[in-house]
């Protein structure tokens, strides 16, 4: 398989990464090299093999439905690019 330039741009858009035309061309070549490496796996017969999503077969732990966190919003928002009145500020979304 081989990714087209349009596909590279579409993926970049899905990933929310701005990409220039020149970068897209360079990226296309590199991604195709990487997918060429990945292709090696696709010919293997894995019929009937259960996918392994994780290193350990674990059940998610449950805990009591209780408040365990204290309010630290001032501390956590101190590292945000823009806040006002306890809210994170972003460009206007709804007119």
């Amino acid at each position: 398989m081989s990714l087209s330039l349009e596909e590279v741009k579409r993926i970049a858009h899905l990933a929310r990464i701005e990409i220039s035309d020149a970068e897209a061309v360079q990226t296309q070549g590199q991604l195709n090299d990487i997918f060429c490496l990945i292709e090696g796996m696709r010919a293997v017969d894995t019929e009937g093999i259960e996918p392994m999503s994780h290193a350990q077969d674990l059940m998610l732990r449950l805990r009591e439905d209780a408040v365990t966190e204290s309010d630290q919003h001032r501390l956590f928002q101190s590292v945000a690019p823009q806040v006002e009145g306890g809210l994170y500020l972003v460009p206007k979304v709804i007119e």
Partner: protein
Amino acid sequence: MINASLKELSAALATKRISSVELTSLFLDRIDKLNGELNAFITVDPDKSLTLAADADARIAKGDQAPLTGIPVAHKDIFCTKGWLTTCGSRMLANFTSPYSAHVIERFGAAGAVILGKTNMDEFAMGSSTETSFYGPVRNPWDRAFVPGGSSGGSACAVAARLAPAATATDTGGSIRQPAALTGITGLKPTYGVVSRYGMIAFASSLDQGGPMGRSAEDAAMLLNVMAGFDERDSTSLEREAEDYTRDLDRPWEGVSAGRPLSGLRIGIPKEHFGEGLSSDVAQTVDAAVAQFEKLGAKRVGISLPNSGLSVPAYYVIAPAEASSNLSRFDGVRYGYRASEYRDLLDMYCKTRAQGFGAEVKRRILIGTYVLSHGYYDAYYLKAQRIRRLIAQDFVEAFKQCDVVMGPISPTVAFRIGAKASDPVQMYLNDIYTIPANLAGLPGMSIPCGFGENNLPVGLHIVGNYFSEARMLAVAHQYQRATDWHRRMPAGV
């Protein structure tokens, strides 16, 4: 003092032959002198470190110290450290002073260890050479024209160059073991789930595992005693009884003679790890190391890991898929970098991420986004997960015939800075021997076992069964009692 083991440092501190402030100052001075050239540290903050050292001295004066109290430890800049810049080697977090600490940092804090600084790394731990760091490449202390490996190249360099007695690191596809091998130190990636991932900036969550770097297996065991432990804030942290990882160091096997301490140990040698692609200098050095183990009483058993060759392709689907999801949190809203100019919200996201991430991180996000996108999920992601099970099963079969698996860590010794930087596929193939243990979730370690081309260090890979860290460390310790590769020190540091 810079060559002392952690046990020796601990004894020197306990008997007041040296204070933690003196010891910490000694290493801070070395960092001051050598870091400009080696670039192992992103952040050092002598005032903070010396305050922690003074606290440790007070604790020692009261007589309530733990084994690592007062010992300075360098932390990979992937571990969130309250009040310290925590960059993960990225422009995206170049302004991020963490408001909280990772579990690993808390554990070292509770043990009274001193934070010596934050070490350089490949951006978001994506790389095998520490060249993708926003802060520039780390240099190999054995020869500064060469890479130290990666992604934990800063931690490895710091330990090898005696800028720190010990360091923390993380391993997703080999990021503890490969830099440990390339710089001639000892590094251990524990069984998945032994060390909490809380506050360890996520790359590929089903593979990421923190672990220690030190100059010997004994040091690594002491460090793992502090790092390991259940933490309810990590959903994959394992609820297990606390272990003393130093317990088997001097009695690895029942009923063995002093001259042959490893009698009965079966060492599996996977034929797939000694074939095409392995350079002859590394092959010879690793073979000589296994021969040394035979002298200590161990037996060589030929084994096969037939699906080993599929580990790189499967990894480069699974790890980027998980990374593309994990790194979606970096959007310029809650923390980290935000582009200075943008038209609207979407443009803010796109510009922030285009400017905040480096080329390798973007490549992996794009791969991950693609393999998880509509119509490709089954063909790539599910397929890779099926291959992952085949690779894990290979080890289940192997451990029926042997107690540990040994082989090379990396196909070659360290390569020159810049040699592979523009060829991602060549860079990825560096991790061909280390990735299988991550996919299976098994513990793996690297110990120095000699020198290859250009007089650069070679690492021996030891993979054990789940939760066999104490035994692996004991096996490595017996080797290190009989050899002195781990005591070699680079010239000019």
